[in-house]
């Protein structure tokens, strides 16, 4: 190796002893090399001599920063617990604010309040409100139906029910003021062993409560099926339903009611106004002296009377619908009894159970992963922030 390459290291005393000895011998033999080494020494000395003096500042600030107690020390144990509790409460509050089900509940409770208000206003309009029936506490609005006067409750049964269990599925009774005009309808599906006999008895039930059969159909095939549309007085609806339920096993039942009090009152008010208008035209006609005036007044009078007749027929139809409730009754024969499944071998059962378990676990994991993925925009920044904060300030805490 070239001695010149190691000359600076030799001058600085950074060479291994053996190599330093070689360089020393080379220096003794070569005056140019010696002069170069002297130059390096002198140059190093000059650099050090010309180096600017640096006035040290900021030591106090660095000292204060280094010895300042950490956040945990400043908070203390109580402060830490309080901070943790505050954070938890804040998270809970945030969760409540962001809870998507809350807005739905608020909407439902608002709807209920509106219903209650409407009921109260209906009661207030009646001088002596008398409730025809009691409302059980389980009464609920069916979702998706708007309007204060529209109320419905449905209950479905996939299987036939015992007569003893019927009370449980009886449609909730509605609070109806006596002067309110409510159109009530019900639908009932029954499984009866003898459909034609049940069909005849249903007709008898309708007649016995003062109603009638509006329409009826009966099919005779492998499984007999019959459908009837019954009209019964509104006051006898519950009694009729009770007696119809005895004809077989109830597989489906629903009841609906529509408050048309406002609609009826509206028609009444329009009729009153139109009659006053009619009276006015009649007086004008009697005092009219010109033929053209008389013709014009007669034409208008005819229009008004036509409208009055139309509204009167609507009012009568509403009264009829409110007076006579409609029951849609369907009668079917019970389905043939299903043969009992043959019991599986123990190993087959174990296999099926294991496969079902694995499938269920897989679905659960997939569901959890979907949640993790969907909530990624929320938790990922928080996680990254915490990780960054811990990396940056963790040891200082």
């Amino acid at each position: 190796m070239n001695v010149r390459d190691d000359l600076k290291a030799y001058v600085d005393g950074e060479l291994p002893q053996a190599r330093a000895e070689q360089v020393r011998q080379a220096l003794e033999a070569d005056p140019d090399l010696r002069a170069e080494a002297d130059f390096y020494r002198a140059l190093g000395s000059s650099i050090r001599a010309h180096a600017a003096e640096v006035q040290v500042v900021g030591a106090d600030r660095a000292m204060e920063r280094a010895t300042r107690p950490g956040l945990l020390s400043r908070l203390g144990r109580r402060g830490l617990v309080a901070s943790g509790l505050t954070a938890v409460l804040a998270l809970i509050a945030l969760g409540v604010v962001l809870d998507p089900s809350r807005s739905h509940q608020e909407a439902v409770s608002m709807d209920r309040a509106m219903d209650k208000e409407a009921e109260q206003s209906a009661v207030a309009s009646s001088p002596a409100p008398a409730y025809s029936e009691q409302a059980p506490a389980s009464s609920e609005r069916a979702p998706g139906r708007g309007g204060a006067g529209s109320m419905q409750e449905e209950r479905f049964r996939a299987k036939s029910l015992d007569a003893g269990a019927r009370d449980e599925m009886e449609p909730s009774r509605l609070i109806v003021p006596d002067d309110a005009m409510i159109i009530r309808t019900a639908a009932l599906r029954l499984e009866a062993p003898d459909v034609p006999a049940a069909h005849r008895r249903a007709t008898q039930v309708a007649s016995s409560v003062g109603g009638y059969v509006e329409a009826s159909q009966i099919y005779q095939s492998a499984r007999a099926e019959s459908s009837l549309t019954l009209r019964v007085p509104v006051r006898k609806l519950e009694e009729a339903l009770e007696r119809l339920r005895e004809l077989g096993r109830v597989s489906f039942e629903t009841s609906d009611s529509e408050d048309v009090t406002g609609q009826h009152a509206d028609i009444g008010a329009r009729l009153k106004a139109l009659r006053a208008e009619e009276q006015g035209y009649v007086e004008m006609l009697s005092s009219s002296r010109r033929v053209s005036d008389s013709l014009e007044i007669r034409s208008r009078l005819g229009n008004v009377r036509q409208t009055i007749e139309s509204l009167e027929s609507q009012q009568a139809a509403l009264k009829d619908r409110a007076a006579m409730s409609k029951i849609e009754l369907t009668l079917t024969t019970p389905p043939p009894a299903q043969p009992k499944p043959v019991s599986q071998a123990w190993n087959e059962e174990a296999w099926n159970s294991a496969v079902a378990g694995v499938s269920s676990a897989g679905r659960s994991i997939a569901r959890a992963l979907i949640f993790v993925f969907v909530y990624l925009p929320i938790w990922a920044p928080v996680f990254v922030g915490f990780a960054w904060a811990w990396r940056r300030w963790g040891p200082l805490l």
Partner: protein
Amino acid sequence: MDALIQSAAKGDRNAFGKIVSEHYASVYRFCARRIGPELAQDAAQETFITAQRSLRRFNGRSALSTWLLGIAHNHCRNLARKNRMEICASELWIEQGAGGDETQLVDREALRRALSALSPEHREVVILHEIEGLTYDEAAAVLGVPSGTVKSRLHHAFLNLRKSLCQDFEPKTETAK
């Protein structure tokens, strides 16, 4: 490892305070020679904050001062890049103005010009070895390069300085002889 360092690594703030008081001046000077006194204070502060955070990872293979200068070196480089300034510019660490001590080999202004002609890497090793007084191994630890690289850079830096100062060198060496 030093008991003081171990205590500071465990979170003893008084122990770390002693480390700061012991090494602040050298770290600050190191930073000031690289990026100037205005930014040196921030760089020194950041150096000790980083050190406090990372002291648990300090394994004692090098001296604490070398380790601190290594951190300071990184902060200075980042600050220089951020402020678009040249690191180790000669005007930051060589006295300004001409003249100076007549006993010295070269004139101050000539030296400043010669140093300015060096690359930042070469100026860096010159500062570390000649001004800070670090050995080759220590300078290598600060810069994060092998010791041989420091030796090579220093050799080439002095060769370049010699070339630059050749005009001044010849008469004065003759006089010295």
